[in-house]
């Protein structure tokens, strides 16, 4: 099934981005499912522009990023008892090489970021996008994207430093 191959090709990277933004694997799965549902529904109207595959991937990323931000806002507006439990992201097996304290510091730092800052971090470090590509995914200017990224990095750097008492 061709569509299944399409899902297989893109879902892991979309999950990586959305998990980073929503901080919940369950919600991220819902978001990615919605992305592919929209892709399926809109498929007959799809027109490849430029390099087809890259453009389709960029479209998926843009939809996933926007949905992840919207979904997290919705969840945050729910009463606390109705919100789903945050789930630790499934991490790379080699993550044991990372100091657990460092991971906790980073998680704490990520919690202080705005949703758009988290999205900028996710698109840069999980998706590996350039600033221009990240800006396109977030439907903003390159300058605005860079500002989000600078503020996010600063917050994470300070979180790593403060916790170590440096």
């Amino acid at each position, binding site marked *: 099934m061709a569509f*299944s191959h399409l899902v297989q090709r893109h879902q892991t990277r979309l999950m990586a981005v959305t*998990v980073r933004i929503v901080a919940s694997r369950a919600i991220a799965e819902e978001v990615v499912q919605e992305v*592919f549902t929209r892709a*399926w529904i*809109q498929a007959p109207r799809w027109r490849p522009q430029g390099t087809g595959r890259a453009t389709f991937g960029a479209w998926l990323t843009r939809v996933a990023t926007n949905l992840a931000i919207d979904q997290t806002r919705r969840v945050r507006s729910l009463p606390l008892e109705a919100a789903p439990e945050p789930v630790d*992201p499934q991490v790379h097996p080699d993550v044991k090489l990372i100091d657990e304290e460092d991971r906790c510091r980073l998680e704490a730092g990520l919690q202080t970021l705005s949703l758009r800052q988290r999205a900028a971090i996710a698109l840069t470090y999980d998706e590996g996008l350039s600033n221009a590509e990240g800006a396109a995914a977030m439907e903003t200017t390159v300058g605005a994207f860079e500002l989000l990224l600078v503020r996010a990095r*600063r917050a*994470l*750097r300070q979180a790593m430093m403060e916790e170590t008492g440096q």
Partner: protein
Amino acid sequence: MTKDVYTLQAFLDELDRLGGDLAHWPSQLRLDAEALLATSVQARAGLEAMRKAEAVLTWTQTKHSAAPDVMAALAMRYPQVRSHSGAVRRLSWAAAGAAALAFGLFVGAWPIQNNAPADFVAAALEQPGGSDVR
């Protein structure tokens, strides 16, 4: 002329802008940074913190993937939108044009009545007894 001093704050600003991999920094900035790092404990601490943050971000990337067949099957339950391809649009215009042509031929083939305006005007002008044109 005094040489500009590369301050700790300037270094930290660039660190937040460019990330902790100095290899990706512009060459002059990298040289300035390396000079500062050789003498500043705070600069080294800032760089170490940034590199740790980026390392943890990299290592904690989610590698999760759900069953693609299930995800695809769930998506494919929904009906797809109708395509409005260029070919279909061109066909629609062609059909409209053909219909207009057929209508025109039909109207054009309608028999002309004897009291057509041209005949009526000619007959009126030939009538004797003057004219109402002043």
